[in-house]
């Protein structure tokens, strides 16, 4: 069982794929905007794992730099998204994405 | 209803019922939380309970609930004879028993129309001024705790201990003295008392200065209290505030000066009011400052009294105490300046019994505290604590 005993690129890719899928699942199914946001964060994390994994096994710095920028983006995104969510909440008194959809004039 | 109308404020809307309510960011639907502060809470000075409606840190409304220490003073006063009331009076404002007794005795003596020996008057003034300092020290110390400074509190209590010792030496008890009796005092001063008291005054002055440096002048303290809990003078009068609270709002009103009871007219003392430079007039800081200044004045009064007090060998302080206290029918309202304000006793005597028909205590804290509800609107919780502290309530007197 070589696959299990030595950790390689593929392991990371699998984890990242699972994380990505879970994140996507949250985005698609959950109605609570905040959970959706969590899903997005999971997706971004999955992407980061990929970046770093490739970077590691290629010996380059690109992936590392990219993941850094992704984190920045994630932070900015979280800030803005939550501000928007709060604003939506203020207006509609709900964070349910689908009902927000139906409530807009 | 022919009820009151308008008060404008940027964040305050007055509903037709005259209920002030702060509208804080009402478009932001954070929920109101009902928060019970007290009866067991470190900053409610005993068993006051404030039911606060809060929105985040902002107190939208705080409703004081009293009565957790309602000890039925007025009932006891109707059931116990005149001298027997004194211990109960002691227990009302337990931080300033001497002053309480003083007020009560003034009321009853008015009713009895008896003359008090001059030396007794001086003795009374001395002990009640000592007690006033002790009481103010507790006020200042607990205020410091409320604002998070623990050390000044202990310093206050340390110095208070000397006063308790002095008073215990004269009266036999540490806190609840039953010393000032109707028509006299219980014991003559012990030998050396004057001397020791002067020593105390000498000892205490630098300590008061140190306290001032440590607490009152501390920038954090100032920032925490300045402009917090503003009370304009006219409203303060309307609320019936008295004592340091009223003076903190800039009204020069001191019963020791206004009524001039006992030997106070002979003494030279200032009525302390804030000057508006260090604090905004009417805020918590000025109330604190007034207390601190009053400590100074009380020290002066003590010195003067000790100077002027007639010395008499073998003086019997109980000589003027009537054997049987049964006042003629009538009613009286007697009052004195307590550390917390005007303490008045409204006594009705039916002329027949040795017990009063009615003895109502007008307690200063009760009245001062009644402004709490209005003062608390739109404060942050820490400010609320600062305001309660600055009112300096003693629940025993509030609830009686």
């Amino acid at each position: 069982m070589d696959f299990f005993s030595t950790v390689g690129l593929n392991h990371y890719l699998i984890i990242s794929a699972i994380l990505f899928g879970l994140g996507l699942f949250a985005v698609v199914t959950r109605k609570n905007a905040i959970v959706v946001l969590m899903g997005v964060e999971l997706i971004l994390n999955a992407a980061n794992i990929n970046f770093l994994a490739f970077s590691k096994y290629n010996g380059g710095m690109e992936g590392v730099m990219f993941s850094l920028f992704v984190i920045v983006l994630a932070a900015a995104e979280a800030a803005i998204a939550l501000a928007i969510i709060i604003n939506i909440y203020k207006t509609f008194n709900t964070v349910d994405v689908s009902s927000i959809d139906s409530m807009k004039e | 209803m022919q009820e009151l109308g308008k008060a404008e404020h940027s964040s305050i809307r007055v509903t037709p019922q005259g209920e002030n309510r702060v509208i804080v960011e009402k478009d932001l639907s954070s929920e109101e939380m009902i928060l019970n502060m007290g009866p067991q809470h470190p900053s409610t000075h005993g068993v006051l309970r404030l039911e606060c409606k809060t929105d985040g840190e902002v107190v939208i409304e705080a409703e004081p609930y009293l009565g957790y220490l309602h000890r039925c003073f007025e009932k006891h006063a109707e059931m116990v004879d005149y001298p027997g009331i004194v211990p109960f009076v002691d227990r009302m404002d337990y931080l300033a028993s001497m002053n309480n007794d003083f007020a009560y005795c003034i009321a009853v003596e008015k009713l009895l129309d008896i003359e008090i020996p001059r030396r007794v008057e001086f003795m009374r003034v001395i002990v009640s001024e000592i007690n006033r300092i002790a009481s103010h020290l507790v006020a200042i110390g607990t205020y410091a705790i409320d604002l998070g400074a623990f050390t000044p509190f202990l310093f206050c209590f340390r110095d208070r201990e000397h006063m308790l010792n002095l008073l215990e030496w004269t009266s036999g008890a540490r806190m609840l003295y039953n010393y000032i009796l109707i028509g006299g005092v219980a014991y003559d001063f012990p030998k050396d008392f004057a001397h020791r008291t002067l020593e105390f005054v000498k000892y205490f002055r630098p300590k008061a200065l140190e306290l001032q440096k440590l607490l009152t002048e501390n920038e954090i303290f100032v920032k925490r209290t300045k402009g917090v809990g503003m009370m304009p003078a006219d409203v303060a009068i309307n609320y019936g505030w008295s004592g340091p609270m009223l003076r903190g709002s800039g009204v020069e009103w001191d019963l020791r000066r206004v009524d001039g009871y006992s030997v106070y007219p002979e003494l030279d003392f200032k009525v302390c009011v804030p000057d508006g430079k260090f604090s905004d007039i009417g805020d918590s800081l000025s109330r604190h400052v007034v207390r601190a200044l009053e400590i100074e004045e009380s020290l002066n009064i003590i010195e003067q009294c000790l100077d002027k007090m007639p010395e008499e060998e073998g003086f019997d302080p109980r000589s003027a105490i009537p054997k049987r206290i049964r006042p003629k029918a009538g009613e009286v309202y007697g009052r004195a300046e307590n550390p917390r304000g005007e303490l008045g006793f409204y006594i009705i005597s039916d002329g027949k019994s040795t017990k009063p028909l009615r003895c109502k205590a007008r307690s200063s804290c009760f009245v001062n505290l009644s402004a709490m509800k209005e003062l608390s609107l739109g404060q942050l919780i820490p400010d609320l604590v600062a305001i309660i502290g600055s009112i300096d309530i003693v629940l025993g007197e509030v609830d009686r």
Partner: protein
Amino acid sequence: MGESQESVSRSQEVEAALALWEIVHAAFPDAVSALDENPFMPFFEVLQTERWREIALFLRDDPKLRCNYMACLSGVDYPEEGKLGIVCNLESVGVHAHKIAVKVYCDREDGVIPSVARVWKTADWHEREAFDMYGMTFSGHPDLRRILCPEDWTGYPLRKDYVVQESYHGIKVPN
């Protein structure tokens, strides 16, 4: 200093109260009684209870009276007359130097007195206390609840015929 000066000031007090009373009497000739020139606490009575609030307002706002400070409001029980009453000690702080007491009565059962809580905010809690202890109602009071005793307390403790309840919430009350 003792007697001499005190009696002087006392008589001054009464004189000031007399002057004060005259003004009130002129304004409300039927509603107020004569001044009781008692040297300890000069007072007059309000004969028409329902006008008490008006009188109170007059006392507070008339430029000659300006009794802006209510020192005390005490409820009293007069079992013989079958009445309850309140006694208000009024004073003018910082404007004039006079003080006076006013008495208002109501029936013992279901008595009503107009509330002056909107005239002097002091009266707010004092009236609540009087209600708590004696059971008279103050009409127009913003928030008339028991203040010292618990909400579900039975009886009005300071009435002369008060009997202590046996138990409160399962706790024995009398000794």
